[in-house]
């Protein structure tokens, strides 16, 4: 069976199945997250999908009180801030993601380095990458 294209559409399709998928170059082994069709090291078009464990640690974060229109529609805002951040995965790559299960009203309680586990979230029938403390 041919690999699905290494595009955002399939990244999100896998995410709906609670799978965090990256693209790995069959030639040189470099791992790419987000997935992409061309290897950054050898520039070949020879990728394969690989599933990551979805475990890592928090590398940076923020608690947002003035969000984009979309997050406002999900009920977030001044009185209900949300946390988003960058997670460093066990396999190496870092990725931006929603951070759930933390107290966004009290950001000083959130610690960089906290172990995280993936837990995708669904809003308006779309699936978003999210993590929560492991």
């Amino acid at each position, binding site marked *: 069976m041919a690999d699905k294209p290494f595009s955002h559409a399939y990244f999100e399709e896998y995410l709906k199945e609670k799978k965090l998928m990256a693209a790995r170059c069959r030639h040189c082994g470099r791992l790419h997250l987000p997935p992409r069709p061309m290897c950054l090291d050898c520039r070949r078009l020879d990728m394969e999908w690989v599933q990551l464990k979805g475990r890592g640690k928090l590398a940076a*974060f*923020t608690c947002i*009180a003035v969000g984009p229109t979309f997050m406002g529609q999900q009920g977030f805002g001044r009185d209900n801030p949300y946390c988003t951040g*960058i997670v460093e995965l066990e396999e190496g790559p870092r*990725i*931006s993601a*929603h951070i759930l299960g933390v107290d966004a009203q009290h950001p000083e309680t959130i610690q*960089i*380095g906290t172990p995280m586990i993936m837990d995708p979230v669904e809003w308006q029938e779309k699936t978003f990458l999210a993590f929560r403390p492991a």
Partner: protein
Amino acid sequence: MQTKMRKLGRGVALVGAGMSKFGAFQDKDSRDLFVEAFQEMLHSVDKGVDPNDIEAIYVGNFSSDLFEGQGHIGPIMSDWVGLIPRPVTRTEGACASGGLALRGAVIAVASGLYDIVLASGVEKMTNLPTAEVTDTLAAASDILYEASAGFTFPGLYAAIATAHMAKYGTTIEHFQRVSIKNHENGALNPKGQFNSSIRQIMDSRMARAKERGLPLPTWQDEFDFLNDEAVNPTVAWPVKLFDCSPITDGAACVLVVAQEIARDFTDTPIYIIGTGQAADYALHQRQDLTSIGAARAAAQEAYAMAGVKAEDIHIAEVHDCFTIAEIVATEDLGFFEPGEGARAAAEGITARDGAKPINTSGGLKSKGHPVGASGIGQAVEIWQQLRGQAGPRQVPNRNLALGLSHNVGATGGTCAIHIYERR
């Protein structure tokens, strides 16, 4: 990666500079602001210039398409200043669009193709409500993998801030000191959006409360004010309102000419001796979350071209879209060691009378940040300071000869740096 030594094909100088008032103007469109900047530029040319001698125009603009519903803005700006049919090129590098326009003009003149080029920038942002401005600015991030994670523009810089705090012990008070300093400088800039220090803002709010018979606030000092969530609400923790540059309308332009004709226009041209530009990945993909690689690479190129080092620079305008951004900028430019930028701000080293004055204009924080115009606005400030024409905010008792501008697009996907010399 950049080891190749680059040089300009011939010398290039600024002989004129102007900017519109920066602020929120319901009754003006981008073209009107552009005319205002152009007029001031013409009047700034000591020996005069015939505008018809301008051969080409570069216009920095991030997103008139989304902010005003107006695409293809170049010919309209050119028309409003009477320069049709000269070639006009719009440059887009998010908030570094202006820096790219300057670099385009410098390269065009250095190549020998043109002798006289207008480098400009413009943005009209206040037509949209704040939520839509937030959406539009977030479009400068990676929408598939950053914006979808809920990141806003202040949010991305806030993430840099938390990483900087964790790695170097930087504190919220450090950010506040940058804000206080830039507002103090901006209070002396009549073209700026705020044009008042934090102290002046506090005093006017006290006066208003008194006038209306409301309970008087009990702020002891600026830090007290900035710690008051009611007047300085969190936007994206740890970034608060007074850490953010405002939403601004404005335009700026400079006249770029070949060195051999510069003295036909003025006895005090400001030479551009170095230009650098570089790119970087989305924030999560970078090795170091506390530094902007594009700024380091662009600085390396500009310093090498100019034959100067960080310590030689007398004055700099850096891209303080958020207070953390100024701290990171002063580290990326090599003014201070990584992690030392916050301490430098706290100790007054970057104050107007400090050893390394940063953002004497008030920076984007206080002067305002019409994103496509900001890179050129920085050049206007360096032009005035190096010529001793900055009025009450002139750096005191200093013979300024070398200046630098540092203009960043989004979280550093693009960076343009220029080095200026008065001889």
